[in-house]
């Protein structure tokens, strides 16, 4: 059974199950990951099958979860920790930034810290405050961390496997409003490397770059643009640190135009980094300035306003129009 249709949530669950099954050093830790199976059920059934020693319910203490995971990694384990929601990662931010990210360099390579920090992130599910944020840039900015986000079930399955095999700490952002989106998962074909961007739609007039929850929006935008006679290429970045600039560059040098789309605030966001680097790399190929579509520089708004805040089809198409108008 090589290919199977499943949701992103199920793909993550299968991926974690596979890891627990094949590597006795893999541990899962977090609040409610055991009996409950996590608030999004990503770890559903795993404690039942692998026991409380492998799938560990923790005290309600995010710094403690990451800090003890670091200690377990120093002892030779490979912990996957779950942060329940994006906005709750900040109590653990100190451990992630000052310890997890830097310990390898400080030890001149003697220490490896194969810790995966899973963070369900992003809005669009009508949640209360601190449950809808996109803090990926805050982690991508920190050297020593790798930051990734899948956008579909196949990537969810494989990128989790790859993150678990990496000897570097990986911050694994899961697009929570896509958890229930289904797609084909091919569990046998050798996957694309973890930090490689993938062209998910070919086009010749303009490049849209997105990751995680916004890939679907961009694909819809590209389909809508086609009806207006515009050929839009869509790149799924998959990795926010490092970023596959070569792939973006190649696409931009083909299309001449670039729009970067993400949910996180535009200000100091990953779009700014991509715009700056691509401007340096491909200045003479650009037909228009690189444009960005994203969240505003405001606290994530109450759920009744999130449709206005989140970049939707119209805002992406508007940016496409603006770029093509140059």
């Amino acid at each position, binding site marked *: 059974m090589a290919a199977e249709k499943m949701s992103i949530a199920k793909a993550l669950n299968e991926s974690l199950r596979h890891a627990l099954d094949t590597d006795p050093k893999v541990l899962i830790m977090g609040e409610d990951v055991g009996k409950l199976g996590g608030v999004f059920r990503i770890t559903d059934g795993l404690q039942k099958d692998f026991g409380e020693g492998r799938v560990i319910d923790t*005290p309600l203490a995010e*710094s403690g979860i990451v800090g003890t995971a670091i200690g377990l990694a120093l002892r030779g384990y490979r912990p996957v920790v779950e942060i329940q929601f994006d906005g709750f990662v900040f109590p653990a931010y100190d451990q992630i930034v000052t310890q997890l990210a830097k310990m390898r360099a400080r030890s*001149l390579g003697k220490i490896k810290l194969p810790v995966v920090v899973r963070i369900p992130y992003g809005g669009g599910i009508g949640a209360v405050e601190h449950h809808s944020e996109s803090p990926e840039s805050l982690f991508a900015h920190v050297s020593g961390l790798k930051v990734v986000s899948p956008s579909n079930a196949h990537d969810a399955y494989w990128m989790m496997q790859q993150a678990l095999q990496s000897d*570097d700490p990986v911050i694994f952002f899961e697009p929570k409003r896509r958890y229930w989106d289904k797609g084909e998962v091919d569990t046998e074909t050798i996957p694309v490397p973890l930090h490689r961007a993938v062209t998910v739609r070919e086009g010749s007039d303009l490049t849209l770059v997105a990751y995680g929850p916004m890939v679907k929006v961009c694909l819809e935008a590209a389909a809508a643009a086609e009806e207006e006679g515009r050929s839009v290429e869509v790149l799924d970045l998959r990795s926010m640190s490092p970023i596959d600039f070569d792939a973006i560059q190649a696409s931009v040098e083909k299309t001449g135009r670039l729009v970067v789309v993400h949910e996180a605030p535009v200000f100091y966001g990953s779009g700014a980094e991509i715009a700056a680097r691509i401007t340096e790399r491909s200045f003479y190929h650009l037909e228009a300035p690189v444009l960005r579509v994203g969240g505003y520089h405001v606290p994530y708004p109450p759920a009744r306003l999130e449709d206005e805040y989140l970049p939707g089809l119209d805002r992406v198409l508007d940016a496409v129009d603006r770029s093509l108008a140059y």
Partner: protein
Amino acid sequence: MTVESTAARKPRRSSSSRRTSAAKAPQSSEPQLVQLLTPEGERVEHPDYSIDLSPEELRGLYRDMVLTRRFDSEATALQRQGELGLWASLLGQEAAQIGSGRALRDDDYVFPTYREHGVAWCRGVDPTNLLGLFRGVNHGGWDPASNNFHLYTLVIGSQTLHATGYAMGVAKDGGDSAVVAYFGDGATSQGDVGEAFTFAAVYNAPVVFFCQNNQWAISEPTARQTRVPLYQRAQGYGFPGVRVDGNDVLACLAVTKASLERARSGEGPTLVEAFTYRMGAHTTSDDPTKYRADEERAAWEARDPILRLRTYLEKQKFADEAFFTALEAESEALGKGVREAVRAMPDPEPMAMFDHVYADGSSLVDEERAEFIAYQASFVEEGN
């Protein structure tokens, strides 16, 4: 198991019956310390902690303390001479560190702060390697795995969680080694230390929390961190806390050994509060005369950990003049060796900053390294 363990202690009447002293009393009072050697150099017995050391072992502890102090004073001098950017002196804390450090087995694992030079000595870490961080040539300088001595940790309290996680791993592996987390009185105010206590307690981790209460967190006194004696914190987490005379190397050794045995036998964590005093500055950057009285230091000098053991050794005739003279010479040789080694310590190659950031490499680091190489090369070409 112990009289000093908080679970076994009766509430102290003074703090509950005298309303006016509610904020002050716990600070000004000093609960009975576990002590085996008085400041006057007299051996005393304790009902729960005993120790029987040969004269040779006692001389060994004395030697450790003297050499550690000599190393420390050399490092302070090197900072004053501009050879180190900063130094965190352990002056006054030799007994706490040597006593606890010598209680450890080789297979135990230590998570230090940035002041555990005496513990590092006990672990066999080359003292010179401790100075790289303070000289600014590296952020670590030793392989943690080769001595089971983790890198120094500068963010206060972070390492208590690493120690706890490591201890959870030890327990999973089914070993009987134990883990020690060192931290200071100031660190007990940090959330991470509280979380480490929680995790260690609920998972029954084989970890000893060794708090060196040196009375000051830079300029903030312990009274600014707590209303209750620190060792009593353990009670709320469900494991024993012990206060030991941190200037008594024998008591520190005995209490740490007992706590380690407790961890090894599956009884979980212990909090040891070594009641001691930082005789110098927090680091070479601060000036303790601005925040504490001279009399306070003078009072603590009378409890000097090294002097009291010397008095005992001399009284018992466990060490003769030849021993002290030879140690003095060894001490000077250590200082000289450290001085020469530090001055000879090369700056790292500029390219080194791009090394070891990632185990699996990173295209971003590769790109910036290439830019840096090209930039450096441009100078060479101009020069030629």
